């Protein structure tokens, strides 16, 4: 480390652009959102008027809010569970060094690198009610697959499917990195001592791998809590608000209806949810690094 005993301004000068940018665009907005959430916009003049907790009180009585909160919970939990289960399976297979690993890895990442718009659109086209390819594939089995996106009871499942499709690579690769922390020598030694596959997985691999598993679960949850692009393209929150998550509700109120004060109140709920999970992530990430070192 260079110690700056001499009064040099160099470190400050070089760090300043980042600090200033983040201050203006990541820190300053939040107090302003908080301020907006306790105000109301007067109809004609557009001036702000202090109304205290009114926006929040109204929100708590609003069925749409509770529904979107419920949708967020459902979406985040189911998507995370599916992504993690599939991710562990894929990571275990890739970790066993089968043929074609690098090809599979590239293919896995293709959905992850394309834009949410491309992803949402391609799936929308597959689900097209009249000309969708999924109809043709599943018709022999007796499923009208293409109606799923427009049916209230199935739309969320479609959104979850598309999210899993897009995010699987991210989770799988982090989980694979976790599995690679387990040294082969250790597993060889266990084998010599007479451990079978299951025993060495649960007794050796899992304890070393579990901190990364937890971190991956939390990162997935953080991603899904504020996910809005896919929903916006695929369903736009419909049918019958069944896929309107908190993030989409916030987007609609702020940038379609331009009710910025109301949207600010909604965004507090989203922020609280996010802060809660991110704090656990910070803690878990620190723990997992300590364990590896």
């Amino acid at each position, binding site marked *: 480390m260079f110690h700056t005993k001499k009064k040099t301004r160099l470190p400050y000068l070089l760090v300043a652009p*980042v600090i200033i*940018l983040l201050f203006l665009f*990541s820190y300053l*907005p*939040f107090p302003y959102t908080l301020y907006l959430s306790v105000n109301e916009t007067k109809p004609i003049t557009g001036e702000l008027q202090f109304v205290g907790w009114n926006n929040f009180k109204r929100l708590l009585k609003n069925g749409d809010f509770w529904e979107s909160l419920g949708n967020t919970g459902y979406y985040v939990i189911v998507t995370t569970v599916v992504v993690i289960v599939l991710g562990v399976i894929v990571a275990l297979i890739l970790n066993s060094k089968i043929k074609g690993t690098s090809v599979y*890895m*590239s293919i896995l990442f293709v959905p992850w690198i394309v834009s949410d718009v491309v992803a949402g*659109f391609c799936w929308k086209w597959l689900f097209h009610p009249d000309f969708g390819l999924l109809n043709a594939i599943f018709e022999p089995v007796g499923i009208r697959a293409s109606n799923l996106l427009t049916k209230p009871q199935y739309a969320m499942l479609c959104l979850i499917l598309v999210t899993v*499709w897009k995010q699987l690579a991210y989770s799988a690769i982090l989980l694979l990195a976790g599995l690679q922390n387990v040294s082969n020598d250790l597993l060889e030694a266990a084998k010599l001592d007479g451990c079978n596959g299951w025993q060495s997985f649960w007794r050796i691999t899992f304890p070393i791998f579990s901190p990364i598993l937890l971190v991956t679960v939390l990162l997935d949850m953080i991603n899904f809590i504020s996910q*809005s692009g896919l929903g916006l393209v695929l369903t736009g929150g419909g049918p019958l608000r069944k896929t309107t998550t908190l993030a989409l509700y916030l987007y609609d109120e702020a940038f379609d209806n331009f009710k910025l004060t109301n949207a600010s109140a909604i965004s507090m709920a989203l922020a609280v949810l996010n802060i809660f999970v991110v704090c656990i992530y910070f803690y878990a990430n620190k723990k997992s690094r300590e364990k590896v070192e």
Partner: protein
Amino acid sequence: MRRKSPKKMMVGAGKQAVMVLVSLFMLLPLVWGLITSFKPQSKIFLYPPQIFSELTLDNYIQAFQREGLGRHLVSTVGLAVTSTVIGILFATFAAYIFSRYNFRGRTFCTTFVVLPMLIPGLVNLIPLFSVYSKMGLLDNFFGLVLLYLPGILPFSIMVLQNYLRAVPFTLEEAAMIDGCSRWQILTKIILPVIIPGVIAVAMIGFVNIWNEFIITLIFTSGRGLRTVTLSLFYMVNANNVNYGVVCAVAFVNIIPVLVIFLLFRKQFINSMIDGAIKG
């Protein structure tokens, strides 16, 4: 050669089967879109859908002639390159200082860079939108660049710090004792080691901005500045979706991102892991 036991071969085949299924699932939507983009208008709306039909470039020609794809490509490249260059320059400075200098306020600064993760980006966009519209900054090129930067800075700094940790400080001390200047240390020792990292975060930043559409959607009016991804969003949400042309635009949108990924796959994936679990 040792023969594998039948049980082992079964397990191996099972693993391959799972991976083939997963790969098909991953590729199906995009490949179907690609096929559609080369179909003539009359063959797109058929049921049951035809996988093989005559090929045409009509959709691509229309995308460039009627949808202004060329113009959107130019503005997307401009926005993405400008933001990436500025972002990576600032991030490299910061990462270098954080990992090499012990100055007052260092812990404060490193924490300051990580904490923005607490607040979802969408939440910050509300007040920023209100300020931008009052200041007449909507549809402004540099206004957008400033909005993209916070999205790539913290991640890039974290990844670059990781690369810098790989250079032992004793190496620099030795060079200093041998009479190297700080500038020589920077160019001869530090840069060669972190160049792969710089390339990786630059590529990831570029891809992120290339794919971004929510910020661009909110902070543009739709009449002026438009990126390819945003124009795709408008096309998908139009009343009459021309699926052939939209598929063509989607593929023009994917190609640069796909090429970058395939070229820098290893650095791309490693940096992603660094940013998420090592930071």
